[in-house]
Structures are given as C-alpha cells and as structure tokens.
C-alpha cells in the first residue's frame, strides 16, 4: 500500500520524528517552525507521547534533555532567536551525551531579523554555537521528503552516538508543500540507544577512549547514577583532572569523526565529468540544480554537490571531486559560511568562489547560472 501525501517540510519533519519513535516534544512557538509544535500537540497525546509548551527555548531544550534521560526520544523545534537561547544546553547535551534532536527552521537574522523569510545563516552557529569544543551533527534536507528521511536519520544518529543532532531547514523548505511517498513504517530503519544489561559494575561514562559510546541507562531503572555538565570521569562524578578532561573532549570529538563515513549523506548530479562544481545545500540547492541543468544545456560542464550532512562535512568526497574540477562555486543564503569549510577542504586545488544572498529570497536559477557562466556577481 503506498501512502502518498501532500505536505509541508515542517509536517514531514514531525512525521519523520514520530516514525523514528519520538515520544516527547517540548517547545516554544516561533515562526517559521511553529507547525512542528502544533502537530506534536495534536499527535503525541493520541499515542501516549508527551507534549509540553515550555516558557521559553532554554526551558524547552532543558526539558527534552530531562526527558531523554528517562529513556524517551525527545525533540524540540525552533528558529534563529530560539536557537540562540538553546545554545548553553546544547553543550550540556553534548558533554553529558544525552541524545536529542533539534529542528532549526532558519530565518533571516541576526536578532528578530525577518521572521517569515528564509536564510541559511545559522550554519556556523549550528556547529559552534555553544562554548567549548564539542561534538554535534547537522543535517540539511533539500526537499520535503528529505525532511521526513533526515529527521528519522537525526534520531538514529543521536541514539547511536549519543550526540545532539540538528536538522537545519529554512523557511522555504519548512513551508513548501510537496507530494511525499511515505514508506511503510515497518520498513524504516530505527536505531535505539544501547543500554546496559546489568546494574552491577555499571559505569555510566565508561567507553573506548577512541571515540567509544558509553551505554546509557535510563533514570528510574535503579541504576542511580549521576549526570553533570562538569567534566566527569567514567563514574559520572565530577573530576577536575586536566588529563581526564582532555581525554573526554578527545573521545567526544572522535565519536563523530569516526561516525562520519557511516552517517555521510549527499546528492550529486553531473559530477563525473564536470568543470564547474556548484556546492549548495537545502533550498539553495534547488535553484543550483536547475542552474546546473541549464548550463549543461548550453554546453557547459557543470555539476552539483549537495551535502545532506553538513557537519561533519563529507570531506573525503569533496576532496576527491575537487581534484577533477576547474572551479567551485558555493551558493548559500548567508554572507559566506559553509564556503569557509569548503575552502579548507579544497585547499588550493581549485578556486572556490562564494555566491551569497541575504535579502530573504531564494536564489533564482539565473543568478547561479550567471556565476557558472563566469560572470561573477
């Protein structure tokens, strides 16, 4: 039985989350993400899931961390100002290794900015918004179906590696409607966190120093363990030892680095023989794809590389591609953020050009085409 539906990106994210087993949502309303909260308020109580509208976004992320510690799959959704408020506790989840998912439907910032217009200017904040070196995974859907798929993936990654995962969409992806063929729920791969089997000798943060993931007990199961945002040793209790902190930071960062080949996700078109490579994600990739096709029709060998995992970036794939192309254009709706990572990866193997747009409108395909054809804007 095929299940075809017309839906918007925010709904697809929510449906994806429910399919992944999300059973706790806490949030605070903010455009253009609110539909996620509204739909969770409708759906969760029907299946015994828990919904709560918190007093602010700091409380929202705190509540989902608390919920996840009791064994729930928990999520929140927000946009710019709310995402800024969440930063401290994103670091808390990263250090305490509590799996959570955050949907950030980007709008134009800084500050209140343009609440109803899309942007991609939280790329760096999503990676580095909280203080301190920390692991985080960021996924960027490029259409409505991917909102569904990547939200499931976000839960799976967060459960497997015990990291906060951010699904970075934008106002256009969140609100546009597309026909989505939903998979049979039974065919969807669902990952659940690994839990300890016995209470005897349980050490909540015991793991292979080389990026291992500790087993996670749930509160209320009799393990009676301690969780703290202070650096802690494998027992979970605070430790002030510098070498212990260093080992923890290294293990946490290594966790995601090691996972990269498995979680890596991207889309390419016409990259086998291309001279001009356009790199774009999310809604910018829609116009870029159209531009690449138009360029091909004009006889220019253009291709598109669209990362779906943007942190960690699929580095080895781009590295390979960059050896074969003459130019790289990075199109993004910000003043040039992801381009910095791409310049780092490509080094000097090919010139990397930054195509930016910050007026709250999508790129028009002609704008990207113009860049491909050499008329730098």
């Amino acid at each position, binding site marked *: 039985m095929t299940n075809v539906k017309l839906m918007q990106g925010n709904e697809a994210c929510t449906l994806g989350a429910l399919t992944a087993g999300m059973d706790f949502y806490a949030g605070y309303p903010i455009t253009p993400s609110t*539909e996620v909260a509204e739909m969770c308020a409708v759906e969760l109580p029907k299946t015994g899931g828990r919904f709560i509208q918190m007093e602010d976004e700091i409380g929202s992320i*705190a509540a989902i961390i608390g919920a996840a510690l009791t064994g729930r799959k928990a999520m929140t959704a927000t946009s710019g100002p709310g995402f800024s408020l969440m930063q401290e506790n994103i670091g808390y989840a990263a250090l305490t290794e509590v799996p959570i998912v955050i949907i950030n439907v980007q709008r134009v910032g800084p500050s209140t900015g343009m609440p109803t217009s899309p942007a991609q200017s939280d790329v760096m904040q999503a990676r580095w918004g909280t203080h301190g070196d920390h692991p985080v995974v960021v996924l960027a859907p490029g259409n409505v179906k991917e909102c569904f798929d990547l939200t499931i993936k976000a839960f799976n990654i967060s459960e497997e590696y015990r990291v906060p995962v951010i699904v970075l969409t934008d106002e256009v992806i969140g609100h546009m409607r597309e026909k989505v063929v939903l998979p049979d729920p039974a065919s969807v791969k669902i990952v659940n966190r690994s839990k300890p089997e016995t209470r005897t000798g349980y050490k909540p943060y015991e793991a292979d120093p080389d990026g291992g993931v500790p087993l996670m007990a749930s509160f209320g199961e009799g393990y009676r363990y301690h969780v703290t945002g202070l650096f802690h040793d494998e027992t979970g209790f605070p430790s002030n030892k510098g070498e212990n902190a260093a080992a923890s930071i290294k293990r946490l960062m290594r966790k995601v680095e090691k996972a990269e080949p498995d979680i890596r996700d991207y889309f390419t078109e016409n990259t086998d023989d291309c001279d001009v490579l356009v790199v774009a994600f999310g809604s910018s990739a829609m116009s870029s794809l159209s531009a690449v096709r138009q360029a091909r029709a004009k006889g220019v060998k253009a291709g598109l590389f669209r990362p779906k995992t943007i942190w960690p970036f699929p580095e080895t794939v781009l590295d390979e591609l960059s050896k074969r192309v003459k130019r790289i254009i990075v199109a993004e709706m910000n003043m040039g953020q992801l381009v910095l990572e791409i310049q780092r990866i490509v080094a000097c193997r090919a010139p990397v050009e930054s195509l930016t747009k910050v007026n709250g409108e999508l790129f028009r395909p002609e704008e990207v085409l113009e860049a491909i054809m050499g008329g730098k804007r």
Partner: protein
Amino acid sequence: MSESMKYFREQRLPHIWCPGCGHGTVTGALVRAIARLNLDRSNVVVVSGIGCSSRAPGYLDFDTLHTTHGRALAFATGVKHSRPNLKVIVMTGDGDCTAIGGNHFIHAARRNIDITTIVMNNNIYGMTSGQFSPMTPKGMIGTTAPYGNSERSFDLANLAIAAGATYVARATAYHATLLEDLIEKALLNKGFSVVEAVTQCPTYLGRRNKLGTAVDMLNWFKESAVNIKAAKAMAPEKLEGKFMIGELYNKPDSEFTADYDQLVAQLQRKFDNFQGGVRECAQNSD
C-alpha cells in the same frame, strides 16, 4: 540516622562545603524526610542547577541530575512529564532559583507540576564568592554591592503562592526538625511544593556583613524567625524585622501530569484502533 544513611553515596563524602555552611543541614533534613516516608531510592530523581547548594545531589544515592545554572526546574519538568511515577525533587539556591531560574520557577508553580523544590536560601551567591542575589536584603554587603545592596529583594514564599504553588513552607537551618517536617509534607503534596530553607553562608555573607560565626548566624535565624502559628497571636510591632516560618500555604489542586494522563486516556479511547507508525496528518486536508 542509620535509616537515612542508605540514601547517601557514602563514597562521595566528605562534601565540598565550607565548615559551618548550612547546606549540609538542609540536605540532612531532606534525606531524613525521605527516610521517614521510606521512599524507594530507585524511584526518586533529584535535580539541581549550579551553585554550592546545587552540589548536594551528588552526595545522594538516587538518579541525580546536576544541570545548568537556573535550569533545574526545566530539566525536572522534562523528567516528571516523561515519567510521572518518579518522585522528582529539585535542590536549588536563591540565585539559581530566583535570578537566572526565575522564569522556570513561576511557570513550574503555575502548572502545579508535582515537583518538590527545596530552595537553599543563603541570601547570596556563594559559589561565585559573594555577589548579591535577588534575595539579599536591602543594605547588605556583597562583592557587587560594596556600599550595601540598593535593590529590593523577593519574598520567595509569596512569589511561589502568587504563581500557583500548592504547598509553600519556610524554615531555617536552625529549625532543622521543623524543616524536616515541612519537607515531608511537601513531598506528600501532589503538586508543586516549595520549601524555602534559610541557611547560612558564613564564608561570604557572614564574613562581609560581620555576622560572626556560623553559630552566630544560626542564632540570628532563631531570633528573627517567628512561627506563623505564634505570629497570629502577636502584635504587629512585635513582628517588625521578623520573618515567618512554618507551613505558609497548603491548598492542593489538580496536577499537570495527572491532567495530561487524563487527556491521553480520553484520546486513546478515541483512537484505540491505531497501531502506531505513520498516522494521518491533521493539517493535511488541502
């Protein structure tokens, strides 16, 4: 005492608090109240924020969650809403609870979510070495109030009552037995309960304000506190400069997670043929 010792993580002791600090007395009162009720250790979650007071859960043998500054109640809300069967207790300081955490405090009270909140009020930011808090009395010295605090302070109990808490009480580290009784009653209230435990920070509040030793501070509590029952028979002039202790408010009301459970039960009756998985999207009618 031995009955309550089982609730401590003895291997974590001795604690980090200064000699004479009142936080240990408050923690002891909480543990004894828990022991009186014979709560199952595995069914209790203790959540705290950041501060000297918020270090207390680390010494207690429950699932314990030491969170970020001011956010204990928001984390605890997630725990309680997820698993209403768990007994959730928050240990917080006056700064943690009423400054950075003030918003979560009034909203947890408004929801009447079943969380017992012990506010360890030493009228100062102890952990960061003595800055004034929203509960530092006017005129007192803090490192950031070197000429005397010029701000007005909160009346925590009235704040909690106005915001919707259904059990509110106050005692001090001097009145440890009363404190224990009040915490026990707070734990029994199915709703948001607040016990303000006035406690001494001899190191920062005491020293800077020349309040003497910990014992002098405890005597100061003894002299300034009036039991609410006794106060009823006292002339207003006698109550000047005093503060009330005892049970200040006790009016049970419907509780947040229980109401939610009821909603779930109602909806599940309506949708009981639903097998899980991807369901119809309510907003997908166009």
